[in-house]
C-alpha cells in the first residue's frame, strides 16, 4: 500500500458542496481515472480516503488536503494529472506527494486552521472604534456561543480556541484573519467567531466570504509538510 497526499483548491460552485459530497467526488474521479485505489475491507468496500477536516458548506478553501491510499505504485505527478482531468467545476488539484502509508491520520495531527473573512460593515463606524471593540472582545476571558449537538443546543466557550485574530478595515468593510483550533482535539468554526463578533460590530456573518487558507500542525508546520 502506498499513500499520496493531495492538495486541492475548492471554490466557485464547489463551495456549496458538503464534505460528504466531496468524498464522493474523489471516489468517482478515482474510478473514472481507473486509479489503483485501495479499498476498505468488509461488506461495503469504499476507497480509502482521509481528509484533514470537513470544510463548512459555503466557504472556499485555498488548500484542502486529502490522503489517498493505493494498492499499486503511482507517481504523484501522474495522480495529479489524472485527477485534474476528472474534477468538476470549482475543484482544482494543486499538487501531490508520497507520504508514509503507516503515518498518523491527518485529523490527528491537525491543530489549527487559518481563515480569512471579508465583507461589508452594515453601518459605517470610525476606524479606531473598530479597534477598541475588537481589543475589548479579545480581552474577554470567555466567549460563549450556542452550538448544535446531537441532543440539542449547548453553550460552548470558544475563546480558548481563538488562537489569533487580526483585522483591517475601512469605513464600510472589514477583513479578518483568524487562526482557530481545529482537528480531533477541539474545533472552533469561523462562523461561530463571526456570530460572536456580530454582537460587538455592525456585521452580518452570512455577508462575509470566508476562505480557509491554511491548516497547521501543533508545531506550526503546514499540514502538507507533516
Amino acid at each position, binding site marked *: 500500500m502506498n499513500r499520496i497526499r493531495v492538495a486541492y483548491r475548492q471554490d*466557485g*460552485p*464547489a463551495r*456549496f*458542496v*458538503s464534505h*460528504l*459530497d466531496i468524498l*464522493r*467526488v474523489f*471516489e*468517482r*474521479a*478515482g*474510478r*473514472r481515472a*481507473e486509479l489503483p485505489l485501495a*479499498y476498505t475491507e468488509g*461488506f*461495503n*468496500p469504499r476507497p480509502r480516503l482521509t481528509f484533514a477536516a470537513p470544510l463548512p*458548506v*459555503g466557504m472556499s478553501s485555498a488548500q484542502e488536503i486529502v490522503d489517498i491510499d493505493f494498492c499499486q505504485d503511482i507517481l504523484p505527478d501522474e495522480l495529479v494529472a489524472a485527477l485534474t482531468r*476528472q*474534477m*468538476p*467545476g*470549482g475543484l482544482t488539484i494543486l499538487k501531490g506527494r508520497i507520504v508514509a502509508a503507516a503515518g498518523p491520520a491527518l485529523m490527528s495531527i491537525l491543530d489549527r486552521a487559518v481563515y480569512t473573512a471579508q465583507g461589508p460593515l452594515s453601518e459605517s463606524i470610525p476606524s479606531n472604534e473598530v479597534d477598541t471593540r475588537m481589543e475589548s472582545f479579545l480581552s474577554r476571558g470567555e466567549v460563549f456561543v450556542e452550538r448544535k449537538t446531537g441532543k440539542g443546543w449547548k453553550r460552548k466557550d470558544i475563546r480558548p480556541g481563538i488562537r489569533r485574530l487580526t483585522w483591517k478595515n475601512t469605513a464600510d468593510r472589514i477583513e479578518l484573519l483568524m487562526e482557530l483550533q481545529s482537528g480531533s482535539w477541539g474545533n472552533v468554526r469561523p462562523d461561530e467567531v463571526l456570530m460572536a463578533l456580530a454582537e460587538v460590530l455592525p456585521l452580518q456573518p*452570512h*455577508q462575509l*466570504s470566508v476562505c480557509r487558507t491554511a491548516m497547521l500542525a501543533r508545531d506550526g508546520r503546514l499540514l502538507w509538510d507533516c
Partner: protein
Amino acid sequence: MNRLEHILPRVEKPGRYTGGEYNSVEKKWEEAEVKVAFAFPDVYEVGMSHLGLQILYHVVNRRSDALLERVFAPWTDMEEQMRTHGIPLFALESHRPIRDFDVLAFTLQYELSFSTVLNMLDLSGISLWAKERTHNDPIVIAGGPCAYNPEPVAPFLDAVFLGEGEEGLNQILEVIIRTRGQSREEILVALAQVPGVYVPQFYDVHYRSDGVVSEVVPNRPGVPDRIVKQIIADLNGAPFPTRPIVPYLGVVHDRAMLEVFRGCTRGCRFCQAGAVYRPVRERNLPTLLDQARELLRNTGYDELSLTSLSTSDYSRIGPLVENLVSHYAEQKVNVALPSLRVDAFSVELASTVQKVRRSSLTFAPEAGSQRLRDVINKGVTEENLLEAVGAAFTAGWQRLKLYFMLGLPSETLDDVEGIAGLADKVLAAGREARVPRGRLKVTVSASSFVPKPHTPFQWEPQAPLGELRERQSYLMRRLKGARGSSFSWHEPEASFLEAVFARGDRRLADVLARAHALGCRLDGWRECFRYDLWRQAFAETGINPEDYAYRRYAYTDTLPWDHLDPGIGKQYLVLEHRRAMTGETTDDCRHGSCTGCGLCPAFEVEPYTAREPNEPH
C-alpha cells in the same frame, strides 16, 4: 451569480442551485440559435434521478446550434429567499433567468407536480396563462406521461408533445429556429404541424349539460383532429447519454442508469406506463454491454441500475447480468435490478448480482386475492409469490417488502384480508427457512389505486376516501398482531387529488390557478401538501372534485383525453375492461399470441426483442 451567492449560504443544500457538476455542459450563450430550459417540477434530487432528463440533455446539447440547460423547483426555503430578494427562477448552467430562453420545456411525471409547474412559471415571471403571453416570453411546452391527459394544465401550456422526445424535440427546435421573428401565433401554428405536437388553444372543449365532455374539436383549419404519440422505432440506434451529469449531491437514484428496454407486454390493467409506452423494444445485448462500459468509465459510479418497466422480462437478462457481474465485480461495481417479477427466477437473478445480501427485496403482488389479481391481470399466483419469497429467504434475505394497492375496482374486504393473509404466509415461509426471529421483517406497503387515462380502468371511479381510510386502518390493525410485519401507506388525500387531475379536464385549470395563489406547490411532499388549501380552491372556484374522482364513465362517453392517441385502440380497452369485470385474464403478448391492442398495426412496428434466432422463448 452575485446576488445568488448572498442567499445560498442561508438555504439548505445550496448545491441544488449551483450547477457545475461533472459532465454538465456549459455552452456559449451567443453561439446557440435556440436555447431551451428543461424544467423538472420537483426538487433537484428527484429531477436528477430521471433518465429522460439526461437523454434530452444529451440529444439537444450534442447539436451545435442549440443548448439545453436545467431548472428544478426550489425548495421552500430557497423560494422564500428568491422572492424576498427579487431573484427570478434561473437555469443551473448559465444562471440566466428562465425568461431569457426561447423554449421552456416541462416534464410532467405525476399529477401532483401540476401546481409546481405553475409556481415555476410564476417564479420565472412568465404569465401563467398561455393566452396572456407575448412574443417576449419563452414558448412553454410539456411532455412526459401526464402529457397523455394534460387537460387540467392545458391552458398554461403553449404546446404539448406526446411520446418519446428524442426525435420530436429536435423537430420542435427546427420549427423554433425557422419561425424566428414570426408572431407567437404563427409559431404555434407551425408547431401544430409537427407529429405528436398538441397546441391546446387550437382546440375547443364542449360539455354536456351533465358536465361530461361532449367533444374536443379544432377551432382552426390545418391542425389534426387527433394527436398521435411518437415513438423511437429502433432503440438500438437511438441516442443514449453515456456521459450523464454526475451530481455532487446525493440524489434519489444516485447510480448509472442503463435503459434495457422500453415498453412492457404484461398488460396489467391499472398500469398507464404499460399502456402508453408500448410496444416493447429491447436493446441488443452488445449495445447494452458497450453502453454499460461507457457509462461506468464516464461517471465513476459504483452502481449500475438496469432500468425498464420489468427488467427480469428482458429476453437476454441471464447473459446480461452474468456478463456485467463478471466484468465489474472486481471494480466493486454493484448491479441493481429494480422492478423484478414475482418468481423464483427473479430471486435467482437478484442473488447473482448481490453477493452481500443486506438490502431488502421488494415484490409487488398488487392485490391480496387471486380473484382480484385476475381482475387487474397481474399474472402472479400465490404459489409464485411463496416460491419467490422461499427462494429469497433461503438465499439469505431477511427483509422483504410487499407492495399492494387498495381500492382496486371490485375490491371487497375479503381482498383486503387477503393482503394480511399473504403477509402471514410470507412470515411463515421466513420462519420455515429459519430466518432468525428478530431479523425477519416483512413490510406491507399499500398505496391507493388511481384510475388512469388510456388504461382499461379509465372509466372506473376511485374508491371513496372514507373507504380507503377504513381499509388502511383495517390492515394496520390486522398486521399489528403479526410479529415481524409492519405496514406503510400513502396519504389517501394525495391519491384522491391525483385521481381528480389524472382524469380531469380543462375546467380544473381555474382550480390549479386558485390553489397556486393560495400557496400550493410541491404537493408530492408530505410536509408541503395542504389538503385544506386544495379544498378551499375547489370551493372558491365552484368545482366539485368528487365529480372527477368518483365519476363512472360510460364506454360511449367522450373522455377529456380521447383526442390524444397513445396508439392503443379504445375498443381494446373496452374489451379489457369487460374481461376485467368477469375476471378473465389476458396473455402477455411476448409469448406469441397477439392480444390485439392495435398498437403494432397503427405504428407499422412489431415488438422487438433481443432474442437470438432459434432461441426458445
